[in-house]
């Protein structure tokens, strides 16, 4: 009996100990984040382009294993009014300069202002087929003539007969031989917001989102962009591009001292991260090099305009030492030395 009693007591003690441990467990578990790391192939932009342009990804459509890849797909769809092209956009250009540029074989790259008034305002050129999109008046569009390939094939390349015809009717589709349209990417902002919430280390998401907000040119959205970038910087303190972009937006808002500080932070980080001679590689692309140059130049310019010329000269000399050769900085140094 005493053995059974002892067993019951020890079991009860064990249960209490386990419950107590469980109640205290958040002290440990809140710090357990095995999936919280920076880098990784999922975030590598080159890898992202390669995998999302593969045949497998084309077949999978929207199905991906990461939110940022889903975003990649959604960006293509939204900018092309729902038409599924075999992935085509230059994301480096989009995040670095806010430019919507197609990869592939450019034959003409027309902006709305270059196209004749009639075609630029309302409808796509050669509008005839009932399936062609109809743009509301005043909607900005950029026409590209690269002949990008659609996921849904053209009728002459399609063995599926009437099923293919029905799919081209039901789904957004433009004949790939015709110029295609890029519509406003503002509607993508919620997706970029979600993406950065699900992956706070996706730097490109912050950059592209900030570009689209900046395009709104309204103070509310510019301030929202600054807060968005602030969040991005707190999650990615080494991402110099975010500081650069924050500086640009601060400057637009007229907060020049803040802008100057941001440019300088961007420049210092860029100097730290830039490989010797600015050698272009998988890790340091042309866009990284351009952003780094922009950071250093803007740091010097803003110091000259809103700070001390002596400090600007010192910065310019220092950055020129790093870059070895930069016509803009050399010119600036000459002017500052003359003064």
């Amino acid at each position, binding site marked *: 009996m005493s053995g059974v009693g002892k067993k019951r007591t020890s079991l009860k003690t064990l249960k209490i100990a386990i419950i107590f441990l469980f109640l205290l467990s958040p002290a440990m578990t809140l710090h*357990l984040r*095995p999936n919280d790391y920076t880098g990784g*192939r999922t975030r590598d932009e080159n890898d992202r382009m390669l995998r999302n342009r593969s045949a497998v990804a084309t077949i999978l459509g929207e199905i991906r294993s990461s939110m940022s*890849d889903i975003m990649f797909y959604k960006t293509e769809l939204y900018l092309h009014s729902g038409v599924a092209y075999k992935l085509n956009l230059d994301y480096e250009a989009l995040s670095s300069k806010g430019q919507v540029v197609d990869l592939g074989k450019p034959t003409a790259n027309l902006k709305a202002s270059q196209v004749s008034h009639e075609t630029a305002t309302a409808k796509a050129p050669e509008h005839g087929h009932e399936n062609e999109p109809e743009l509301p008046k005043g909607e900005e569009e950029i026409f590209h003539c690269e002949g990008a390939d659609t996921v849904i094939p053209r009728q002459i390349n399609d063995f599926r007969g009437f099923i293919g015809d029905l799919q081209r009717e039901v789904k957004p589709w433009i004949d790939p031989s015709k110029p295609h349209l890029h519509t406003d990417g503002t509607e993508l902002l919620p997706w970029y917001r979600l993406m950065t919430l699900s992956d706070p280390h996706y730097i490109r998401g912050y950059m592209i989102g900030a570009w689209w907000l900046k395009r709104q040119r309204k103070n509310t959205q510019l301030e929202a962009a600054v807060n968005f970038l602030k969040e991005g910087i707190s999650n990615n303190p080494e991402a110099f591009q975010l500081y650069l972009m924050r500086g640009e937006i601060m400057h637009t808002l007229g907060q020049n001292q803040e802008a100057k500080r941001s440019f300088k932070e961007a420049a210092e980080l860029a100097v730290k991260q830039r490989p010797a001679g600015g050698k272009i590689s998988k890790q340091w692309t042309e866009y990284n090099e351009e952003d780094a140059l922009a950071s250093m130049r803007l740091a010097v310019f803003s110091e000259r305009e809103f700070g001390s010329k002596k400090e600007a000269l010192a910065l310019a000399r220092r950055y020129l030492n790093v870059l070895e050769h930069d016509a803009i900085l050399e010119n600036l140094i000459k002017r500052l030395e003359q003064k």
Partner: protein
Amino acid sequence: MSASFDYMKVGRWRSLFIVGHGVFLEMLRRKDFYVMLILIGLFVMGIFVISVVGIDNAATANLLLNLGMSLAWFLAHILTLLTAARQIPVEMETKTLYPLLARPLAREDYYLGKWMAVTISGCAALYLLLLLGWLPVPRLEFYDNRLFLQIVVLLTVSIAMLTALALLLSLIIPRSINVVFISLLLVFGGSLMGFFQEQTRRTFVTQMLKWFTAYIPDFSRLNLITRYTDGIGPLSGMEFFALICYGVLFIVIALFLGGYLFRRRSL
């Protein structure tokens, strides 16, 4: 005295085995393996399509590896959930529970036997699907085998945790709500809680709320598949051990609570 104590121990294991055996027989009778065959067929079809289309580069191979393993994770967990969620409610509905408990089979043993059997079958499904998702994809980049072993262990703990939770909730809420709730917790729980925990400001109330969200099981912590395909290294010994303890703690609490509720339930 000790001989009868030994007999009780043997008797207990025998009871667990009998209950578990019953679960497997039921699964055979219901032809639950059809579902496994369908899922295996799905993977085989995927492998076939890939062999036709080809893998252009290492990034595509990485995508396929991640998708295959993630699909295996998801399907194994859903199958386990569906099996666990129906165990006790169905036995109560069809009244096959009573003859079992009329025998000298303690309710706790019955409950534990169910958990063990469903966990074992869930793990079997997991290993098979994981193999199908992992093996056929060419390894064109570096992947750490130590991390892969850690994944297998942690996913086993995850399956056991899911089973314990599903069995517990099957005593409290209807089956369909149980399945839907745990499915959502499985897929979205980690991101939602992570988002909430990141966003909370440093006030006392929000910090307390943050503390309490840690009591909700987060299956994403035990899922390291993306870390593996991202080429990140294995967890340190301490972190790995802490994660196992995290899972085991939830399992034990859920089993205790479930056993207690089942014992007090009027049948």
